[in-house]
């Protein structure tokens, strides 16, 4: 194996292990929900791993990321630990948001993961604002908004794209097109074939598509568009095709999806794709098995630690409204 191939294999192995960590964490979230330890709902990202991991690998550590209520993968990809994510889902004091956010609002501001937002499309203008701020401060940072195909039919999407284009801001809009807005096929409710990419021309910005289950291709595309944005050439839109392994949320068994379609996409699993690429690069099966084993171990320890962690102090309910830490609304 030449040096170049060895480096390539090592990098890809790292990405594979991160994707496996997301998959394993999502599996744990699923199991914990079924055992009653996670309340409310979850929107699992199993199947979407390559988009978060590939994009994150293409970004600078100080870039900004905004995600949706299906945001576990982005939070993990930006450096949050499975333990702090699962603890949040399990309403533990040690959770990322100290049990005030829950599954739909995972945030790790310290690593530039500026939040998971549960009103469809709302965070696209925020990403525009973060990119505007980066420009004003001259930091060379960029902002990335990840969103689902359903968000492309909401007003905030269009307002954000236009403003970003007019101000030529360093922001990327990355659509995770998993073919269903929630339960309804996106194609049934959208006027164009590519719900995101086909809208780009209306705002005079690049609109590309990529196989969202191929982590190498995602990283490549995001790298290219990020470099362009950083150089001052403005925003771009990337539509990554992918597929959910679970339903829209915990309430949804996803019976509306044709069996043949599900089967086809499961055969194009992002982890399998990466495994195939690693094998082609000469990485032995045992190496992959060792990576899987490390991931299993990390997630198992995370589950155990989250289970053992205490719940929040009830007094926490009346903190953190204001910057002074309090909640006083009157004298």
């Amino acid at each position, binding site marked *: 194996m030449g040096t170049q191939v060895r480096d390539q294999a090592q990098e890809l192995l790292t990405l594979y292990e991160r994707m496996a960590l997301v998959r394993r964490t999502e599996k744990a979230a699923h199991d914990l929900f079924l055992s009653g330890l996670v309340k409310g709902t979850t929107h699992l990202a199993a199947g979407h791993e390559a988009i978060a991991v590939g994009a994150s690998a293409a970004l600078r550590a100080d870039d900004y990321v905004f995600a949706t209520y299906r945001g576990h993968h982005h939070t993990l990809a930006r450096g949050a630990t499975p333990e702090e994510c699962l603890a949040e889902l399990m309403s533990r004091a040690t959770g990322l948001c100290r049990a005030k956010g829950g599954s739909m609002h995972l945030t790790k501001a310290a690593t530039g993961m500026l939040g998971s937002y549960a009103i469809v499309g709302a965070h696209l203008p925020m990403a525009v604002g973060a990119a505007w701020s980066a420009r004003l401060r001259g930091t060379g940072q960029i902002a990335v908004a990840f969103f689902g195909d359903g968000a492309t039919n909401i007003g905030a999407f269009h307002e954000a794209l236009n403003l970003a284009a007019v101000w030529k801001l360093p922001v990327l809009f990355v659509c995770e097109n998993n073919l269903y807005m929630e339960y309804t096929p996106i194609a049934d409710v959208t006027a164009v074939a590519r719900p995101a990419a086909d809208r780009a021309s209306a705002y005079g910005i690049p609109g590309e598509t990529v196989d969202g289950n191929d982590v190498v291709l995602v990283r490549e595309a995001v790298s290219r568009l990020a470099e362009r944005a950083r150089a001052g050439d403005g925003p771009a839109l990337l539509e990554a095709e992918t597929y959910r392994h679970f339903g829209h949320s915990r309430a949804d068994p996803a019976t509306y999806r044709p069996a043949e379609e599900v089967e086809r996409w499961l055969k194009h699993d992002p982890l399998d794709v990466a495994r195939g690429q690693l094998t082609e690069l000469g990485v032995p099966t045992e190496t992959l098995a060792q990576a899987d084993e490390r991931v299993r171990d990390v997630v198992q320890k995370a589950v155990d630690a989250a289970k053992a962690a205490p719940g929040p102090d009830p007094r926490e309910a009346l903190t*953190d409204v204001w910057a002074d830490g309090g909640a006083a609304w009157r004298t």
Partner: protein
Amino acid sequence: MADVIDGQPAIQRQITYREAVAEGIAREMRRDPAVVCLGEDIAAAGGVFKTTVGLLEEFGPGRVWDTPISEQAIVGAAMGAAMTGMRPVAEIMFSDFLACCWDYLANEIPKVRYMTGGQVTVPLVVRTANGGGLGFGAQHSQATENWAFTIPGLKIAAPATPADVIGMMAAAIRSDDPVVFFEHKGLLASKGAPPPPDHVVELGRAAVVREGGDVTLVALASMVPVALEAAQRLDEEGIEAEVVDLRCLVPLDMSTVLASLARTSRLVTVEENPYQGGWGGTLVSVVADEGFGLLDAPVRRVAGECVPLPFADALEEQVIPTVDKVVATVRALAAY
């Protein structure tokens, strides 16, 4: 403690409420390079109400940004910028249009700090022209301060004088919390003494703008001059009304209101927003909880009628509280 404003201003150049808005923003932009402005027609045009005149000239296009008619993008971008080190001042041209970006004011800006467990702060100001009296009809005349008042996590400022515009703008922009800043359209042409340099009016401090021992009138923004004029007329009838300018709805200065009631034992709120859901409902509920023993008479609310704002002056004055309505209400209450 409340401010007691007394005496007459010295003979000096007066400034309008309208000019005070631009002056208040400019003072903060001079002292803090993180302050930037965005909104529709605010830069080259100086604002449709001329409340941002001179900002582009003094601070340049890098700090004063014209936007498209995209309320969600304006307020959403302000939020993203505020989370990442800037202090944006966003203008929503008419407060009625807050409805177009209500998601940001209801779901995003006031909640993001809380739901992230305190990981982020959102130091921004959303300025907006509020209220009626100019004959703009149902979609450009509403007093919408009560909309914001339903949402924990927003501070709400609504100044009544040019000096307060400047002092409260300073406090709002320096605040690490989000502030909705209501500029009253009916007061834009009103004049007052300019405040001294570095004038800051802390948010959440009401002002007793007229002292009196018989009844407390609590008012906000354009209802402050209405209450003051009513107090003047009542004075001629021998009724001494104390007038409290709330200045902010959040923080709500109940201490000043309750202290005034301890002196007067009668309460009338004067609100431009509709009676239905108006801020006075919350204020009197606190009085009922904590100041019931101070009262010698029922509380009265003079508030907007619960209809859309009509166009004709003759109709609009039936809906928005007038001096006559306040006088009649106080007169009846004094006789209770």
